[in-house]
């Protein structure tokens, strides 16, 4: 039991650590940012989680194309859905942050727009899946699209945001983080706590959904 579930316990510990120290820990006093800097532990960690989930999803799509095993397709779909959930949460936490630092929930900032577009690309993945009824064809075509969409994600959220002016921190170089804004104590919460904690939670949610899908599949095949 412990051998299988140690990472779930780790996830809970890390999240408790993140939330406790995230709200109570010391943060540097920055003008405009003030206490909202604590959102780093939630907002930025969501994007890390999203990228991890999308990466796992595309790995399963590649595995599907080489093995034709329908289980891999279910994995790819559920990891993509988990990534979409984290992306939506990233947008929501980001726009709450923007409300208190830039003055509006949505200010058509290039980085906001491109992050939303990245999610639209994945919504299109779900629509593509639903447009086909033949199971085998659906799995294959959507695996192909998933790989293509993942490749197009890089210019959308990593390359072009570095080339345009934006309100978002981290102009040239890193597209999202300005590492000068956070100090050592924040780093100790962010890197060991928030990023792996939220990512593990995402994986946990996805594995539960995968189990559900596999059971539903099994039930269908026994009818």
């Amino acid at each position, binding site marked *: 039991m412990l051998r299988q579930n140690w990472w779930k316990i780790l996830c809970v510990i890390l999240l408790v650590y993140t939330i406790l120290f995230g709200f109570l820990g010391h943060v540097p006093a920055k003008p405009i940012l003030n206490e909202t800097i604590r959102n780093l532990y939630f907002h930025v960690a969501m994007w890390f989680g999203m990228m991890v989930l999308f990466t796992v999803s595309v790995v399963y799509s590649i595995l599907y*194309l080489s093995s034709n095993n329908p289980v891999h397709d279910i994995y790819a779909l559920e990891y993509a859905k988990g990534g979409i959930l984290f992306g939506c949460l990233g947008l929501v936490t980001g726009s709450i942050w923007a409300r208190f630092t830039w003055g509006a929930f949505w200010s058509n900032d*290039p980085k906001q727009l*491109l992050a939303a*577009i990245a999610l*639209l*690309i994945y*919504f*299109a993945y779900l*629509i*593509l899946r639903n*447009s*086909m*009824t033949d199971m085998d*064809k659906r799995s*294959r*075509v959507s*695996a*192909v*699209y998933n*790989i*293509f*969409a993942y*490749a*197009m994600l890089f*210019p*959308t959220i990593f*390359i*072009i945001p570095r*080339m*345009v002016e934006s309100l978002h921190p981290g102009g040239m170089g890193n597209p999202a983080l300005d590492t000068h804004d956070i100090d050592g104590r924040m780093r100790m919460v962010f890197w060991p706590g928030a990023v792996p904690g939220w990512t593990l939670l995402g994986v946990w949610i996805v594995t539960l959904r995968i189990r559900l899908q596999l059971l539903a599949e099994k039930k269908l095949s026994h009818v």
Partner: protein
Amino acid sequence: MRANFNGIRSVSQIIALFKKDLLLEIRQQYTFYGVLLYVASTIFVLYLAMGEPEGVVWKGLFWMIQLFVCVNAVAKSFLQEGRGRLLYFYSITGAANFILSKLLFNALLMLLMSLLSLGLFVLMLGDPMPEPARFVLISWLGSVSLSLVFTFLAAIAARAQQSAALMAILGFPLVIPQLLLLNKISNIAFADVLQGGLGWMVAVLLGLDVMIVALSLILFPFLWKD
């Protein structure tokens, strides 16, 4: 020696497939005139609605129309091939040759189409370009990039039902990064002096094109199997 021989053979197959598409187009004259009519009537509506717009609006409209032209012109490339014909191609040539010939044909078609729609734009919506030659080159770069993305998406959409509508749904989010880059690049063309950063952006766009072609070559064989 063997690889060399295969290389020559696949080039001749690509040329043959390309010729077949070209010949079909010349005989049917469906895409060309259809899209031409589409562009002309859209631009006419734009003229009636807003007269002769300023440079920024003009440029925005141009890329928007290019996007729709591309969807319409490229959609046909896979939809016209019925099941039986695809099976025939499958038996006589490789997947890579087939997709390369389609990419090539659509890129050339879009080069022609973008030149024509640029002409119609200048004719009906005025000419705010300080450097027309530079903008022609940028529009070519843009239309080839768009045609590559949409060719691959047409190949995906052809496998599903309601393909024409699906292509637009899949394609629009995917081409936004490219359109954004193109818009930035054409800003530079609209400025009187050549600004910095152009080379870098063109390089990113070209890199994106290379990536799309490479992905099409790798992934198309999986779409093809049935």
